């Protein structure tokens, strides 16, 4: 951070209120999260990178949220974020409508929260018990929508290089790959949500996909996603999600496909669960994901490229101020067979990763939390096969 950033931080810290700000007779509510995460530089392993330059374990993040609700049945919601004070990104901006006052049915239009899974909709500063993200939502695989491998060898060559992947077909510029589900961008489209008894239904039509949310469309079809959740008893939530949407860039799909809409999709199936009672909170998610890429050259990538991820996390409140938390996380990939690499043996197309993160925190005040974690990562390939990170974070919300 330079001097200007430091001054902005000081100014911000002095101005932060103790609770959400109400304006216009309570029709406008403004909240925010300020999170400063401290950790060592990582120029070799990139386990926690969210793109080229931003590291989730070493980041200053400001998020401002606002809700304008002029009537009981209409609201406009926005979330504006900046990471490391570099850019300001409208993370969410949508209108929410409840057509029938007495029915729990809502429609949201704009840059909307994902209906798939559970993690991406949570508020990072207040609802993430640790500092790092689950692998499925953050770890950059070597897949890109705008550049694709011509052969299995091209793909295998990029194993463990998702932070900066290049391929011979499509964009020649090196760029980060995508995670299974992006926790850093939301998609644009329409979604509907309804509640009936213990069930919760939501569905969305968007222009991007889980791994590549978009504001403007760059592919040859829409993504359709949905989630059914049940709350059989208070404190237990079980969710089942599915999605399918055109993933590969339109120009590439046109060049190597048959012209069908929704060709070369990403499809995914997810299960999530949360249980809390007393001082315990336990969550878990499992995701099965497939990317369908064009078949171009030999050795061919004939099957969809699969990635599976699962994590379990838990938090225990030791007392009014203290908590401990841990997450165990695994990300694996299906196998492809090259010729030049790995002796022609079937090999996972990206390097499987295991992550264990544990830590604790203290509530300095209700909305000011200090956390510390140790995170250990193991990867089956790449320049760095395993690495341990220590990270501390202070977060404030209002």
């Amino acid at each position: 951070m330079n001097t200007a950033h430091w001054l902005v931080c000081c100014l911000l810290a002095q101005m932060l209120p103790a609770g959400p700000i109400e304006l216009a007779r309570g029709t406008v509510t403004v909240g925010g999260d300020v999170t400063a995460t401290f950790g060592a530089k990582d120029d070799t392993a990139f386990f926690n990178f969210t793109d080229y330059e931003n590291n989730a374990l070493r980041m200053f993040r400001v998020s401002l949220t606002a809700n304008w609700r002029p009537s009981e049945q209409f609201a406009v919601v926005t979330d504006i974020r900046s990471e490391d004070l570099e850019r300001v990104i409208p993370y969410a901006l949508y209108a929410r409508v409840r057509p029938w006052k007495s029915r729990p049915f809502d429609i949201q239009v704009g840059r909307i929260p994902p209906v798939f899974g559970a993690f991406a909709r949570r508020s990072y500063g207040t609802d993430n018990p640790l500092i790092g993200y689950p692998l499925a939502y953050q770890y950059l695989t070597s897949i890109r929508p705008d550049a694709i491998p011509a052969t299995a060898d091209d793909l295998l060559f990029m194993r463990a290089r998702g932070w900066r992947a290049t391929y011979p077909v499509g964009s020649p510029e090196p760029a980060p790959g995508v995670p299974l589900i992006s926790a850093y961008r939301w998609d644009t489209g329409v979604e509907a949500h309804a509640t009936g008894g213990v069930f919760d239904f939501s569905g969305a039509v968007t222009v991007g996909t889980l791994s590549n949310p978009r504001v403007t469309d760059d592919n040859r079809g829409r993504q359709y996603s949905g989630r059914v959740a049940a709350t059989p008893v208070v404190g237990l939530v079980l969710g089942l999600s599915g999605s399918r949407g055109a993933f590969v860039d339109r120009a590439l799909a046109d060049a190597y496909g048959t012209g069908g809409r929704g060709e070369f999709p990403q499809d995914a199936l997810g299960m999530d669960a949360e249980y809390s009672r007393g001082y315990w909170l336990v969550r878990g998610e499992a995701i099965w994901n497939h990317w369908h890429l064009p078949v171009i050259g030999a050795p061919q990538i004939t099957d969809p490229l699969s990635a599976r991820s699962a994590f379990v996390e838990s938090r225990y409140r030791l007392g009014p101020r203290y908590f401990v938390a841990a997450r165990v996380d695994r990300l694996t990939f299906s196998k492809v067979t090259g010729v030049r690499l790995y002796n022609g043996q079937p090999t996972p197309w990206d390097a499987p990763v295991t992550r264990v993160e544990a830590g604790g925190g203290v509530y300095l005040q209700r909305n000011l939390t200090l956390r510390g974690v140790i995170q250990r990562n193991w990867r089956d390939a790449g320049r760095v096969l395993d690495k341990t990170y220590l990270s501390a974070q202070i977060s404030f919300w209002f």
Partner: protein
Amino acid sequence: MRIPALCALVAVLVSPLSRPMALGPGRSETAALNSGDRVGATGAIRGRIDVRVTLAPAAARPDPGALSMAAMRDPIDRRKSVVYLDPAPQAAFEASEQRRARMDQRDERFVPHVLAIVAGTWVDFPNDDKTYHNVFSLSKTQEFNLGRYAVGHSKAIRFENPGIVRVFCDIHSHMSAFILVFAHRYFAVTDDEGRYRIDGVPPGTYTVAVWNETVRGDPPRRTVAIGEGGGDVDADFSIK
């Protein structure tokens, strides 16, 4: 992240509401004025607290990740005040009977929003809602965390020390309440019209103070005297 950012965040203001406030026996210099240990006719202090604040809804943080419209909530009545004697008659500290009070969790709010009790009182926190709640406080007067418990269940905690306890729900950020714990029984919570009445006050001269959540800094005070024959004394306040 660098150190300056940490320093900047640590500089974040500490809410004035979390500062402890003297609700105990009071200051020694004014205690000399009291004659509460006398036995005889008692009086009452009554009046009205005119709190001129706008009723605001219970502001919930915007939740962009929510998939549905949150229910509209009734405004919290921030006009509720607690009127108390500071200091109180000396005899006030002799009572030690077991007391019990109740603060419900209903429609994602604490009911009542303001509760005044004597130190040593057990307060029940029944969950009468449709969802989990997690009642906690980080107040210096008393820290506690009751954990998550479901509808129909209740947990209780004994408030031992005089002071102000700010109560929250760990799950619903818009839920908050105040518990004022006194070392004596000479206090009253105002009714819906802002009226109050403190009965059984022995003859003497007292300072009447008013607590209201909208007041920052020292509470409004007024000196009143109860004559030897008892009787009612009026003490009105206006809070803007």
